[in-house]
């Protein structure tokens, strides 16, 4: 048996492991829940904070000492199978913790709301402002994607979202080869060196601003949070003081809708002036804004929020570690082994 001396023996003790694990777990929970902050953050962003990384490094040292102690325990003091399960658990725990540290240096994360027909990468749309988190040695994945189709799975008579799936075209720039990828909201997909996940769904109406002579002044799809029916969102144009408030009712889905056909509900304000009070608008119908200008909403498409994560620490260290831990816990449960506590007998 390895005779751990002084500090190493202390580091391998239950007390230190419990302290460091509890500290890291509590710190993560408080950060995710946003208990002392304006709002919570994602788990990985909380674990990347310097305090969490420092605790993780200390925990790594303690786990290494513990693994050394357990690995060299004499067989007549402990059942070999129990020792193997504990080692499996400790190794998995070590890898998970090491993955947190590695991830804090190499993780890239970004998100974008992609409308059907919209392209991302290669000069197309960029990541959404504020969604990118790039650690010191991280590199953004080189992806060229085009959103083909988004299919929401809706329940409660069209009022709630059960899930979303999307078909995305990936273009490999060097060769020009194309392949179609299916994203689902219930689990991310690992392709092209990154995790891709579709998380949210909404509608992108196509607006058209026309001038006094009917000439088109501006037109585009605009991603808006218009689901479920009755939800309101607004948009502005960069060079205009008007705000367009919009609701969308697909095919008579809300009591407010005046007909069974798809309808919008529109309101327009110019600064504090309500220039167009709330009114029902059919697709293609022009609504005057004053000064000879008019707005219409011609067609509507779906948008989905796609997150892209490239993280070698998570993919190649944390995930295998989690698998090892789960395997150990399953075996421990079957054989009645307690992996969470190690008696003092092993420390002699």
């Amino acid at each position: 048996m390895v005779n751990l001396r002084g500090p190493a023996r202390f580091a391998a003790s239950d007390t230190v492991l419990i302290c460091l694990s509890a500290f890291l777990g509590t710190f993560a929970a408080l950060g995710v829940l946003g208990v002392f902050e304006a709002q919570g953050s994602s788990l990985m962003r909380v674990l990347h904070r310097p305090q969490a990384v420092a605790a993780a490094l200390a925990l790594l040292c303690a786990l290494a000492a513990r693994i050394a102690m357990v690995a060299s325990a004499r067989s007549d003091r402990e059942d070999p199978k129990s020792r193997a399960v504990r080692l499996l658990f400790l190794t998995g725990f070590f890898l998970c913790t090491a993955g947190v540290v590695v991830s804090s240096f190499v993780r890239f994360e970004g998100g974008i709301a992609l409308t059907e027909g919209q392209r991302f990468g290669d000069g197309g749309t960029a990541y959404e402002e504020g969604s990118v988190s790039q650690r010191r040695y991280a590199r953004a994945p080189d992806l060229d994607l085009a959103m083909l189709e988004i299919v929401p799975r809706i329940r409660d008579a069209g009022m709630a979202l059960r899930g979303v799936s999307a078909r995305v075209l990936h273009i490999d720039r060097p060769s020009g080869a194309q392949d179609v990828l299916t994203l689902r909201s219930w689990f991310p997909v690992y392709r092209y060196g990154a995790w891709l996940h579709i998380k949210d769904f909404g509608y992108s109406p196509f607006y058209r601003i026309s001038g006094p002579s009917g000439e088109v002044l501006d037109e585009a799809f605009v991603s808006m949070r218009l689901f479920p029916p009755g939800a309101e969102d607004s948009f502005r144009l960069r060079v205009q003081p008007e705000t367009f408030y919009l609701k969308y009712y697909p095919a008579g889905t809300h009591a407010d809708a005046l007909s069974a056909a798809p309808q919008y509900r529109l309101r327009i304000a110019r600064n504090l002036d309500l220039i167009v009070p709330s009114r029902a608008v059919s697709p293609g119908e022009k609504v005057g804004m004053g000064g000879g200008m008019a707005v219409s909403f011609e067609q509507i498409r779906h948008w989905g929020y796609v997150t892209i994560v490239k993280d070698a620490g998570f993919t190649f260290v944390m995930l295998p570690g989690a698998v090892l831990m789960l395997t150990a816990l399953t075996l421990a449960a079957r054989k009645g082994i307690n992996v969470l506590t190690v008696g003092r007998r092993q420390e002699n």
Partner: protein
Amino acid sequence: MNRKNAVSLVLAVIAAAATVLVTTAGSWDRLRYTVGAFEREAEQRNISETLDLFGATYAGFYVTGGNPEGLRLFPAEMLIKRRIFMEINTYREAGVVYALDRDRSELKDIQFLDLAHAVAVADESWFMMYQDAATRRSLSAKRAMFTTVRYFLKKRWGKWNVLEYEVYGRDDTLPPFDRRRVIAW
């Protein structure tokens, strides 16, 4: 788990909470907000005064045809100021003044999201008419407008500022707002 480990666990949890409190920006303010340790009535009065100043200065910009004198004291974000002057410039180019006068503003509700963010809802009554910029002759009949405005405010350097607003008709139902989006502004 023995007593020693149980005590260690509790101490570790306390240490983690203390670390978050000490090292996270704004954590003490968040704690004060959560336990209600702030002068709510005084802040409500401050917000009410801010919105009075906002409305009066807003009308002043239009009535003067875009005199920027009140800009420094106008409690609003830069984008709001820019949109106002975009509109005024359009009128100026047409030789018109859009004379605005706020008749009444009744504050219906003030909700604090934290010590630095608040949402206020007010019923407002405005009168407006178009005037010739040179002669101030009326070019249109006086028109009344009755709206409900939801203001999103942020406190910076001890003063409340209007970050954004939403305009509704009096009969419109105000939809819920995204709290996270407001706090992130």
